[in-house]
């Protein structure tokens, strides 16, 4: 019985993550449309797209690696989700979060991108290759401030476990966004890069690269990638909520906090043009990195 409950918990987590993910993305599409003076699609449009894609038949393939790409992608998304505590406490939605720590999350999060890159590589489409080259380069940019922010938190709380970081932020005043605002700034700028929204969408640049790495993927491949994308978006938001906003005790609180965080890249994305790859990299290596270093110095000084 206990086992059954645990296993159903996994599926529930995935379901919640997927739903929240596609709703947030639909919300973004509406918001963007409104700003551009359009009506925009309904909020559940992404779900419709995914259902449509899953029901399509593909006639051709470019080899085994093309299949493995989306599988790698969903592996990374779900594994990331499984190792993040969704809620502060209680038995629900904890999944495997006691079994791994932040360093593990750091690496499993990039696993999907590398897998995607491999899948895209086999298709032979030059647009995909260009997109991969840009995407991987950009990772090297934003991971630096991200790790700086994480290090600041890990050092401050003397733990690499998300649970303990969450547990330490027991009041609003104890949230890391207030305790170490510099780390938050560095982390959130890195988060902008992770979302691949403008100004950091050069790897996918729709008008230029025909959407880049996923160019050759259609039907269920694309469906699986979009599913994975929704789950991953939720996982990342939850991670940031846990890190900086003290986590959430129930799903509603989580939704509010996540949406608040999500608005930051969305709004910045709407009002900014696109960076070139090297500009993006140099941007990440400059201000966010300096802020991240300051945040660590701040932590060292505070201890």
């Amino acid at each position, binding site marked *: 019985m206990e086992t059954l409950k645990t296993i159903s918990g996994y599926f529930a987590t995935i379901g919640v993550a997927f739903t929240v993910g596609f709703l947030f993305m639909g919300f973004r599409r509406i918001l963007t449309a409104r700003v551009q003076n359009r009506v925009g699609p309904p909020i559940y449009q992404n779900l419709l797209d995914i259902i449509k894609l899953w029901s399509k038949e593909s006639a051709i393939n470019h080899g085994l690696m093309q299949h493995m790409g989306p599988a790698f992608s969903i592996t990374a998304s779900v594994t990331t989700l499984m190792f993040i505590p969704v809620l502060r406490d209680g038995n629900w939605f904890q999944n495997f979060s006691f079994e791994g720590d932040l360093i593990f999350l750091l690496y499993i999060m990039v696993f999907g991108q*590398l897998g995607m890159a491999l899948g895209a590589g086999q298709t032979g489409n030059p647009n995909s290759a260009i997109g991969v080259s840009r995407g991987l380069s950009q990772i090297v940019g934003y991971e630096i401030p991200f790790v700086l922010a994480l290090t600041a938190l890990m050092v401050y709380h003397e733990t690499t476990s998300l649970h303990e970081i969450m547990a330490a932020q027991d009041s609003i005043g104890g949230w890391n966004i207030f305790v170490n605002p510099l780390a938050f700034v560095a982390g959130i700028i890195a988060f902008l890069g992770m979302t691949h929204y403008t100004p950091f969408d050069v790897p996918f640049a729709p008008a230029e690269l025909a959407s880049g790495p996923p160019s050759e993927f259609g039907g269920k491949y694309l469906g699986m990638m979009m599913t994975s994308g929704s789950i991953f978006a939720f996982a990342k938001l939850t991670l940031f909520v846990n890190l900086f906003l003290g986590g959430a005790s129930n799903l509603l609180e989580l939704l509010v906090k996540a949406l608040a965080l999500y608005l930051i890249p969305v709004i910045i994305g709407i009002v900014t043009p696109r960076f070139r790859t090297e500009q993006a990299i140099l941007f990440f290596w400059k201000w966010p990195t300096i802020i991240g270093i300051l945040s660590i110095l701040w932590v060292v000084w505070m201890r």
Partner: protein
Amino acid sequence: MDITGIPFFLAVSFGGAFLAYLMNFAHRFLRNAVVLLTVSASAALLFWLGDETFSMEMGGFVLTLGKTPYSLFFAGIVALLAVPTVLFSFTYMAKEERPAMYYLNLLITIAAMYGILFSLDLLSLFIFWEIMTWSSFLLTIHKGGNATKAGVKYFLYSAAGAYAILFSVVILYNMSGSLLIEDVARSFVLQNPLMQLMLAGTLLFGFSVKAGLMPMHGWAPDAYAESPAPFTALFSGALSKMGIFGMGMVLYQIFLQSPFSLPVRELLAWAGGITSALATLRAIQQTDAKRLLAYSSVAQLGYIVMGLALGTPLSMMAALFITLLHGVFKAMLFFAVGAVYFRTGLTDLNELRGLIRRMPVSFLTVLMAIISLANIPPLGGFVGKWLLYESLIQSDHYFLVIVAFFSSTASFLYVYRLIFSIFLGQEEKEFEHVKEVPFLTMQLPMLALAAVTFITGIFPGIVLAPISSALTYLGFPIQHDMWSMSMLFNEWGNRMNLLAMISVIGTVFLTGFTILYFYRMRRTRYVTTKDIHTSGEVPTENENLTYAINFYQPFERAAHPVLSKSIRAWIDWIGRSVSELGDFLRHIYTGDGQTYAWYVVLFLTFMLAAGSWIL
């Protein structure tokens, strides 16, 4: 002779080399059998190696051999890589010239590595060290052509290192009157601190050359690129680790008590960090597969030095774990690149492409290896990096974490370039007839090592057990709450459960893959890589659709300020200046008899003048 003794062990290792050389004149199968038997026998003998030490006198010095848990761990790495290396050589070297020399030098190199590890005194260590250097030099120049230059460069760097070591050894011998490492350590602490600093400094410098620590890494790209691929695997995987072995010995058996120990280790850790970052950037720039891997090796050795220099139990575990794992996955990569070279004759990333369907096993090998190299779970590479980052954070080296993480992330770039340029992308007509390499001699070594990366990723305890006893020997008591068979703990008590990790990853991946494979792929038909989305324009047969040249141009632009400077160029400049000085001095010898006569007269005058002045 006692067959569990070290003399017998070394006799087998060295004797096999000469026997194989002689057997070459009989038949090549006989030779191959002897070669394989020698390395397997020495690998097997490692398990039965007795504890007793063995001394002999040579040239007035007492040489002592014996095993320690620390050396046994490194010997394990050598054995683990030596067997696949010779196996891979059989087919790979069949086309090459002078096989007898190749196997002779290869086996001498392997035997010399064992010799280094089982030396309990500094002189026998140095002797085996030099034997290893010259035999590997001969292997490096085996191909001729550019390899000669690369080999000489390798030797000169090595010589600089080796003579730094010898310098210290002579002085230490003079101070302590004994060559035994433990005696040397005892009298070392009695010296004044500056002397200690100089001696340990030269020793560490010497060993770090072999490890390719910047700025003394200049030999590595050329030597790795030019040496025969199977040997390169051993070169990067095991031989360069002898430097790590030596550094660990100096830092923790000789130098530990010195007041300068901590600053020196801090400096080394930073040198390691900077090495890993800069070498990674260089690797991204390379267009030759072997050079790329060479720089990658330099970078990985940088991590190891970092872990070694920090000197916390966790960091030492990390250093030794990465030492093993790097050996394994780098050997896989060099094998795979060698396999591609064997079939296509190319290592140029701008020319190779689309081999995935022609050489699937090599592709799988590279895939496993790069996942390991990029430290991505669930393979073994991740365990090493996990230990390293935890130890960096917990020993308050926050900025080193960033440096290390930067190079680790940037390594995605070059590993992707490697696998993409060789195996992915457009399939080309010219590679249509390329076949996968033979199973027994070439695929098997690659797959066996791939299995090692997988197993160590889930059950690192298999490796951490010998590491623990090695570290206990070095004076780092490893408690049992730091690791278990598939569980890792950091110093703050956080844990990493690798079995949970592999279950989640495995389940999700298999589900996702099964869905796509059984419901999609089997019903679709394979089309060529020309049949792609190109906005309605149909590409012609000969149209080049590959994006591989200048693959990371944007990144290189961003990193230009760093990439435009070259440490190697500075060292080369020093070399050239010495050479030019030599050329200038040569003009002393004008070839004119009168000048020479003047030299004699002036010298005599000078002597007499000096003599009268002194009087």
